[in-house]
């Protein structure tokens, strides 16, 4: 059922590309269709240009297109991303500290949570539950929400370098806009949910729009 879900979401978001291909296969090779395809591509290009304008929150970047309707994931503690990242304006990389250094963003160490929550909001039920884990010397058994297959090597560090640290005009405090490329507006969510398809078409179109590498082995090692 999940696979079907993925399939329909991916197709719905990429109707333009797949339709143009199928119409080409089923109809004659008329010059008119070829012209239409060119127009379509040009339109896409102009959209990309508009998105990459200098005064955007993420300059020099074309956010990848695509949506996905993920499942609600039940976590051991209902972690409110909105309170942390939106209300209190905590930078994503403060907790997901490994994202800028490593392939994986990492789940924050429990010690990091307790750094604040040994004094902040200690009476709240979620924090009490967190403290119980901490006192048992056990990290909460978080459930993975975003994943790619084992044959795909995605690295957070290189993407952050391209869109944040080596991106002229980009402010680090706006990093959540870059995270949102693939994770959606997590700062508006309570428990994170998958809202982007994270499939190869999604990645490829972003690489094309943002001049990312096109070699197969960059991702498939």
């Amino acid at each position, binding site marked *: 059922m999940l696979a079907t879900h993925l399939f329909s979401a991916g197709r719905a978001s990429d109707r333009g590309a797949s339709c143009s291909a199928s119409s080409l296969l089923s109809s004659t090779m008329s010059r008119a269709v070829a012209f239409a395809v060119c127009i379509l591509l040009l339109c896409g290009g102009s959209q990309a240009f508009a998105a990459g304008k200098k005064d955007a929150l993420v300059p020099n970047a074309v956010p990848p297109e695509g949506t996905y309707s993920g499942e609600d994931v039940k976590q051991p503690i209902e972690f409110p991303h909105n309170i942390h990242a939106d209300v209190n304006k905590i930078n994503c990389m403060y907790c997901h500290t490994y994202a800028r250094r490593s392939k994986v963003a*990492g789940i924050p160490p429990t010690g990091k949570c307790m750094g604040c929550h040994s004094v902040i909001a200690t009476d709240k039920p979620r924090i009490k539950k967190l403290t119980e884990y901490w006192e048992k010397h056990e*990290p909460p058994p978080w459930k993975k929400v975003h994943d790619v297959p084992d044959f795909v090597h995605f690295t957070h560090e290189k993407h952050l370098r391209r869109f944040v640290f080596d991106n002229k005009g980009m402010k680090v405090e706006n990093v959540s806009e870059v995270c949102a490329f693939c994770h959606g507006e997590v700062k508006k969510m309570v428990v994170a949910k998958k809202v982007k398809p994270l499939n190869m078409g999604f990645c490829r179109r972003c690489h094309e729009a943002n001049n990312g590498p096109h070699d197969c082995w960059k991702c498939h090692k």
Partner: protein
Amino acid sequence: MGLKNINRRGFLKLMGWGGVGATVAGCDMPSTVTLEEGKETVTSYLMPEEYAIPGIGVWYSSTCRQCPAGCGLHSRVREGRVLKLEGNPDSPVNQGRLCQMGQSGLQGHYNPDRVRSPKVRKDGKLVDITWTEAMDLLDQHVGASSGLDGTRFAWVTDSVSGHQAMLMDNLMSSLDSANLFIHEVVNSEVSQAVNREILGDATPRLMIEKAHAILSIGNDFLGTGDSPVHASTEYAEFRSSPRGVLAVAEPKMSLTGANADLWMAIRPGTEGVFALSVANVLATKHKVAVDMLPPSIQDAIMRRNLNEDARLTGISGNHVIRVAKWLSSNLGQSLVVAGGTAEGQVNGYQNGVAAMILNVMLGNIGKTIVASHEFPFPQLAHRSGGTGGLLDFVKAIDDGGLDVAFFSGANPVYTAPLALGLKDKLASVPFKVAFAQFDDETSQLADLVLPILSPMEDWGTIVPKVQGEHAVISMQQPVMEPLYPDTRGLGDILLDLLKKHDSAAYGSYENYYAYLSQAFASFPADMAADGKAVSWNDALAKGVIAVKSGEKSLVSKLQSVSVQLPEENTEFPLTLLPTPRLGLWDGRHANIPWLQEAPDQISKVVWDSWAEIHPNLAKQLEVETGDAVKITSAQGAIEVKVYVFKGVHPDAIAVPLGQGHKGYGRYADGLGVNPLEILDTTAVEETSELALYSTRVKVEKVRNKDTLVMMGDHDVQMGRKMVSTVTPAVFELTGGEA
């Protein structure tokens, strides 16, 4: 333009666009791998070390325990899991290299057939118990108040060294027992006996890199020698400019033989004759002095007849002359090494002596064969063993019987020839304890099975079998947390047993780690070769400590040589060669799929046993590759598929070691045969070692062609000229020299 009247250009355009469309659409297809949201748990760190970053590996130094060589390791650990092993460049043993057995140590560590909790035999079956119950049981049988008579206790182990060996010795002393039996099937015990007798040093250093010509008589130093990676590293230097020349005489082509410039198939048991034949040509044709040899040996050399020797050994006189020419051109810069199939004969000791005569004549002693380092801590030194340890163990059962037997590292029920009757004899030992990472043929017969940590989870100090430039102590440290909470280190168990006997001496050590770190602190401050102080952390980070060692010198005490030939045997005309290889080794790695999958270096067969048979013998038996034959000795029979191959003497049949397990886990069981089962129990004369390569057999065809799975299907180039070749006639004239 419809599809019916499409022209070539239109077709290509269509295909081009169609291809792009299909690709783009395909990228949005769901993956064949189902990615489930919210199903997989991700465990975060509680309080990570600063250097631990998920996704980025941290390298830890340790020591490889896959064979007795003791190579230094670098282990890559990520997210608390060891993922890759490589050689430690700081170890003079392997200098950064690591063989396939070392690389595949991971599959031993992560093997799903690991023993996960202590087990005791109840009503004939092994059932789980707690460690407290297990240690109480041990205490009842070997504790201070057990009343155990030390002569009725025995411990069978693989090679040991370092503090583990010292604790074992201490426990044996506490029990007043001398029955510590070290058992290795792949060993060099006969060579060591020859070296000890003639040179006064059992393990002299062979300076392969300094030699310009090497003659190996049965010694597969690159594949199954005392330290294959060390030898391979030196061999690379030997082959660099000026390129050294290698000749190998052996009854079955080994990895070393496959690298030789001249490979000679020798009739098993005639290796000593061949060595003396070479000595004869050296003395008579090249006038190499023999006056340093005792008259009896000079006489034995001079009595050799080239043509007669060629008939006996199967090696032509021309080849003997060529080998003698290479050796005589490199006096003091040559090396003759015997071992393996040469020393596993009934006359193996004398074969070794004959080879050593060549070294003495060629002036190699002190040049390419030099004294080993005088290791400053003899109690920690490497203790090697052979099949003699197994025979001694069986004798101990036969002589007075045993009450308690311990097994660690060794699997004697698998490695003992059936003729020894070990399985039945073990039934008379009432309490057998197996310290085991995996269930194996021996632990299946045990009364108590204690699951031990893998080498990647445990502490230790190892003194390598072959030392390189410096004498070293190699450190072993846990590179990750134990996979299974109910496993314990052998050192920890030993320490607990010793505490029961001498709490004053051992009671203060909380565990083996505490013992090791304390022992380390008690080393002399100036023990390092460079004179600098070594801290515990430095030693762990670097992985090896080069220690100051004393100087030794070699003597040359040749007295006599006697090369008796094997007796003719018309009923069993062939000699069985149960050959080890770098991979499954003596069978201990048969439960590692990577090593089962790695093709044999010579036959390229995977996941199976085979019998290498010379084409002439195959013709006589009317068999082809893939046919099954029955190999029968006086002790029993095995059935195995044939691999017809020119690299084996027509009088020999070679069956690799390692397969034929019955109780060694899901990857090992049910594959191939174990040739050790049908060996005779004859010993090498003048030693207590089994003559592993002297069992006589007969062969008969039992089945027609079956599948023998191997990489590639032929051993010729099929005209592709991948390697330039010359005809045999040209080679005979030039010896392969330009």
